[in-house]
């Protein structure tokens, strides 16, 4: 077998259900050359750009020769076309296992069939939806890489290349500030590559920065100034702050707010005085740690593993739709338990093929690998969750009782498996969903939502009541929520500082976003949450 044939088949082995475009195969088979040509294509110099496109065409031709050979051998087939006629390739077999071997290579590809779960009836009725069901068995929703585990951006970049193919929603880079030094070129190059990879893999990325630890304030501002204008919206920054830090580093914050306002970007602030653990975003929604898991991470994972899995699988329930179609509170709780059951069944299948699907991380030792998977959980998410079921039964009471049921189920499963000699971790968290989870299928909701111009607008009775409910929801969701405020156009930096200070100190809101895209007027929830 030609080494290129083996590399192509290796890409399909890692992701057997996926349809690969020629470009994606080029990226996977020639990662180094692909990185170089991408930089060439995105450079400012015309000649370099031309060279980049020429190299790209050459690699495409070379790859297609081998792909077509595999099509002739009936190992692959064309599944369709994308964009301007770019072919998509899939494994020819529908499901099962195939062993391809010669003297030098042995590749075992197993393609799982569609897996039936206890919520399939509910999915059919439109009551619940799975996030990225095609990669339920072989990908994780969210992985966090801890920059403390790397000595350079280059090293982190190398790890990211291994992680991107195994993730179907988002990657977070924690403690980004620790790798910043006097030379911003390396950081800039890293972020540029990160943006390209995020685009190629259609993955969200959150860069988490602790303002307390940050030493190079000016350097970070300079870096942001250079990269923000060209950064895709799926890459976001989340700054960890406290009310006290906001005062202590006022000048830095002013510049930061001004920069994000000028670029019309979303500025995410996490109140680390309330929640020390990271919070970050994907297309499915928010990801977080319970305080118990975060303490475990700090004491056992950090220093052993290069990061950790934070999200495994996600499903979403449209609460408004559920109850408007005659659903009852009991039925809702039962649906949540069925969802937890479904997560558990999928986890059972993932354990079965664990080495095959999650060996991509290539971690140095077993302990590192164990710790990497030690704090992940699946998420049952909610859409239109502020819809009151009954006046006397606020939604957070319902969600609180659902959480109790789901926690009970998880504990029972862990206890049973542990007593059988299978010490596993199984946790399901509750969280909100973002519109991008499944925008077309969500019910719409109209929000009386205007952009904020002054702190006073946050102090009306209506807004206070709303924020208090959101505080309670944050508690139910253990921090896995995010509140967004649109900042009206033309609001001064002084006023935005005042709004930030107020939100950080007056309410227990672990994470909120100041969106400077200046939207105003009545918004549908789907619009309100767009690009989340």
């Amino acid at each position: 077998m030609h080494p290129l044939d083996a590399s192509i088949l290796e890409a399909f082995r890692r992701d057997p259900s996926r349809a690969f475009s020629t470009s994606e195969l080029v990226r996977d088979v020639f990662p180094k050359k692909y990185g170089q040509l991408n930089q060439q294509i995105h450079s400012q110099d015309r000649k370099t750009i031309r060279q980049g496109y020429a190299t790209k065409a050459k690699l495409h031709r070379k790859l297609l020769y081998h792909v077509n050979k595999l099509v002739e051998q009936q190992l692959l087939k064309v599944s369709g076309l994308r964009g301007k006629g770019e072919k998509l390739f899939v494994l020819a077999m529908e499901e099962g296992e195939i062993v391809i071997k010669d003297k030098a290579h042995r590749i075992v590809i197993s393609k799982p069939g569609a897996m039936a779960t206890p919520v399939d009836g509910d999915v059919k009725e439109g009551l619940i939806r799975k996030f990225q069901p095609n990669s339920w068995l072989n990908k994780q929703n969210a992985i966090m890489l801890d920059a403390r585990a790397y000595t350079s951006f280059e090293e982190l970049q190398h790890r990211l290349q291994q992680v991107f193919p195994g993730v179907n929603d988002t990657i977070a880079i924690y403690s980004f500030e620790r790798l910043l030094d006097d030379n911003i070129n390396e950081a800039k190059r890293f972020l540029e590559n990160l943006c390209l990879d995020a685009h190629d893999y259609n993955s969200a990325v959150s860069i988490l920065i602790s303002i307390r630890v940050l030493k190079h304030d000016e350097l970070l501002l300079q870096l942001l100034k250079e990269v923000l204008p060209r950064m895709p919206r799926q890459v976001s920054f989340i700054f960890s702050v406290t009310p006290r830090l906001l005062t202590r580093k006022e000048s830095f914050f002013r510049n930061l707010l001004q920069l994000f306002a000028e670029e019309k970007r979303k500025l995410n602030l996490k109140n680390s005085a309330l929640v020390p653990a990271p919070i970050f975003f994907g297309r499915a929604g928010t990801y977080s740690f319970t305080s118990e898991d975060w303490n475990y991470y700090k004491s056992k994972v950090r220093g052993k593993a290069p990061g950790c899995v934070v999200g495994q699988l996600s499903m979403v329930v449209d609460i408004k739709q559920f109850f408007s179609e005659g659903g009852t509170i009991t039925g809702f709780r039962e649906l949540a338990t069925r969802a937890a059951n479904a997560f558990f069944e999928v986890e059972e299948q993932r354990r079965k093929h664990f080495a095959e699907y999650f060996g991509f991380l290539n971690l140095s030792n077993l302990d590192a690998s164990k710790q990497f998977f030690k704090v992940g959980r699946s998420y049952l998410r909610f859409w239109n969750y502020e819809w009151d079921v009954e006046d006397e039964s606020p939604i957070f009471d319902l969600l609180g009782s659902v959480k109790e049921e789901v926690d009970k189920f998880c504990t029972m499963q862990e206890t049973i498996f542990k007593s059988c000699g299978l010490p596993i971790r199984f946790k399901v968290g509750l969280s909100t969903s973002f519109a991008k989870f499944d925008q077309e299928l969500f019910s719409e909701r109209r929000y009386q939502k205007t952009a904020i111009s002054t702190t006073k607008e946050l102090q009306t009775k209506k807004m206070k009541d709303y924020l208090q409910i959101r505080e309670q929801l944050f508690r139910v969701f253990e921090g896995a929520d995010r509140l967004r405020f649109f900042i009206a156009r033309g609001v001064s930096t002084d006023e935005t500082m005042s709004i930030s200070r107020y939100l950080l100190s007056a309410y227990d809101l672990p994470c909120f976003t100041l969106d400077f895209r200046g939207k105003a007027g009545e918004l549908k929830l789907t619009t309100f949450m767009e690009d989340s």
Partner: protein
Amino acid sequence: MEIKAVTVMEAWQAAIRHILSEGIVFIDDDKRECREVRNLTVTVEKPSSAADGVRAMRSCRRWKYPSEEELANIMLNKEAASIYDYLYGQRIFDYNGKSDQINDFVIPLLQNNPNTRRAVVSLLNPVRDLHPDAKNVLGISLIHFRIVEKRLCVTTIIRTSGFFTGWPANVFQIAKLQEHVAHALSLPPGPLTTISLNAHLHSGNFDDIEHVLGEDILKGIKRSE
């Protein structure tokens, strides 16, 4: 106390009745009320019936019970997996990354010396497992193989045994290992004995016990103190 029965189901029911009637109430580390008896010995004459307990637990829709495949795999597979805190198979077939206790020790020893009483497999690793803050410590600690009347008998020491949820799985796993060794020795499997240093039932499981093993199982037994 020693319970002897022909099949796993009979042994399981008798043991549960014994724990319910003779067990003392205590609160475990997770603050759950339990009933326990100490040093409970249970012998199953026909370990070939071991899967019945697992199947009974799997037929109940209140929980997800491990599959026979996964239970057998963690007992017979030496490849350590990242998703389990520990793996019986690794301890048995690749102890400390150095010793295959079955294929390099137990089987050749019994082949060469059928009367030996030294065919012991140790799963507990004091250096790794026994720390004051360790929460997941192995249940199955030691397995002893002995050829008696041309049959391969096995006795297992279980540190602590949740008799409703855990014991059927443990017996199934040990029976699988017994099958493996018996096959290598060309002998039929003999009785399988478990000695549970602590055999307990969670009070919260009483309804489930009735559900799986029938209402008669709790007849005449006082449910709570």
